């Protein structure tokens, strides 16, 4: 009996120790350190003291909070766009395409992930540049005389963000839709529902957990992304991660960088909480 208990304890710790180590050393301590350093600033003597200066700086400099608001709105917009693109794909792959075709198509969808974000971003630069594929094509067939200004705009930035994140919306929606029994759709049809009603009252509510978990992943990926806004958005893009980057690596103001990092964390937490509230979903259901 006693041996048995020891054995249980040993396996229990074997499983729990890596989890706790990871949580404490990789999540809790770094964030605590970040939080503490965000409340520190140099005083007139050049010593580090407790201060709200970093946060005050954020609210008093228009450029900072404008960037903040823009990052939030664009992230939400990209998430909504990702849903528009992802839902038909997910629906086609789970309900229309044959099993064999579907797995092949999913493989195709995964290709951009294999080559990495940097390569796909450069790919978009080649496509969208002034002398890029699209402009060259449009000028050759004579639709335009001067190249369209596609690259280094909000448009090219949104395309890039969408391209790298849309798959993370497709997969959770697919797993929701896979468990949707076709007889539910037939039953709704039998009860006189139009296609629109079936879509809005049956299919969408049924796949809501998948939609929300996809939306959370996409939103977090987009709001914390650096490459696409920086390379595709150019000088005008003003993504909040760039401000954080500047603080850490250009002006070497790590304390302000820490404060900005925390503000970004607050922002994404608030938006996700709001999204869960508005859609009536529970975190445990969405997370599964």
């Amino acid at each position, binding site marked *: 009996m006693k041996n048995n208990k020891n054995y249980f304890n040993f396996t229990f710790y074997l499983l729990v120790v890596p989890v706790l180590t990871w949580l404490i050393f990789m999540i809790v301590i770094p964030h605590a350190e970040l939080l503490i350093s965000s409340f520190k600033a140099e005083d007139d003597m050049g010593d580090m003291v407790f201060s709200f200066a970093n946060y005050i700086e954020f609210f008093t400099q228009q450029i900072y909070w404008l960037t903040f608001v823009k990052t939030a709105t664009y992230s939400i917009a990209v998430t909504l766009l990702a849903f528009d693109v992802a839902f038909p794909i997910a629906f086609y792959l789970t309900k229309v395409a044959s099993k064999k075709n579907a797995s092949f198509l999913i493989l195709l969808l995964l290709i951009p992930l294999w080559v990495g974000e940097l390569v796909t971003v450069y790919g978009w630069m080649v496509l969208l540049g002034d002398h890029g594929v699209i402009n060259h094509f449009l000028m050759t067939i004579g639709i335009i005389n001067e190249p369209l200004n596609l690259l280094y705009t909000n448009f090219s930035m949104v395309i890039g963000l969408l391209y790298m994140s849309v798959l993370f919306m497709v997969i959770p929606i697919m797993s929701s839709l896979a468990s949707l*029994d076709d*007889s*539910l759709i*037939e*039953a*709704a*049809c*039998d*009860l*006189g*529902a*139009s296609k629109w*009603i079936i879509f809005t*009252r*049956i299919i969408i*509510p*049924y796949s*809501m957990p998948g939609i929300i978990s996809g939306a959370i992943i996409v939103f977090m990926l987009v709001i914390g992304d650096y490459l696409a806004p920086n390379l595709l958005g150019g000088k005008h893009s003003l993504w909040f991660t760039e401000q954080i980057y500047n603080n850490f690596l250009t002006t070497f103001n790590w304390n302000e960088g820490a404060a900005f990092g925390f503000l970004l964390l607050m922002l994404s937490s608030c938006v996700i909480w709001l999204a869960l509230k508005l859609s009536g979903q529970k975190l445990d259901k969405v997370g599964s």
Partner: protein
Amino acid sequence: MNNILEIKNLSKHFDDFSAVKNVDFVVEEGGFFSILGSSGCGKTTLLRIIAGFQQESEGDVIIRGQSMKGIPPEKRPVNIVFQNLALFPMMNVRENVAFGLKRQKIKKSVIDSKINEMLERVGLHDYENKKVTDLSGGQRQRVAIARSLVMNPSILLLDEPLGALDRKLREHMKVELKLLQKEIGTTFVYITHDQSEALVMSDKVAVMHDGQFEQIDTPRNLYKNPKTAFVAGFVGDTNRFELQSSTNGSIMTKGGWKLQQPDLNSNANELYIRPEALIINPTNDLIDVDQFNVTIKTILFDGSNTKLSTIVNGSAEELQISLPQNAQFDDITEGSQLKVGIHHNDLKCF
């Protein structure tokens, strides 16, 4: 009574086989019509064609005298209760029942009173705000039926709705469904592989086999006077014998058992006898009854369904006989001899 549903020469061909072959039948208004068949006989396909989810290859479905050709499922005056019920899991009981009515242009007060009436009728009024996933099997059943019935369909189609329930509940729901149908008077078309469901509930039963109807009859006639060998073997328990010869009103099985059967179908080669048609210890004055002796091999005890497994004396034929559980036959033991009789009409030859 007039016919609410007419199926005319209906066939459904798939690439490599035909699920439904030249099926013809009518259903009377207010009737309870069952289609009985084993899985894969085409009964679900037939039901889906009536509901409009599948297109017939040939023939026509006529409801209240109107052809249903080209009319989509949502416009047909029929509703279907699915095998897995297909309740909407994200809605509560009331929302499920209200779903169909909300699609029509009716006043909200009218909808509300219709739903209340229907929930009251199926005994779910206290559960209207419960999630359907929290209900028991029988309650989910009633939600599915209420959801369809509240649409006031000309015909309610039921696709083996009792299949998922345990035995006790199924027995209970059988009676409940029959009473509900009588009370509201809607025509039910019910498909099942369970002969007891079909026999207990229906006014008329069609036995379907390999895409075709073998016989359409009342439950009693189907049991008493099967028209084909398949029906005789499929409906109820039965003893089946292969015939060696049949001449001059007497028949001989392959196992060497001789019996009298005056009105014999001359090219018959199968004989069916129901276990309960056999009379144990018949008196000698019975008319048209063949009497013979059997040796009891084993008693297969199964409560009210108990049977004797016997060998007919002077032959190799095994014969099962129903044994009523009453004091009269308590002294019957394994290995003993028994006198048994069978009426000529209970010898079914095909």
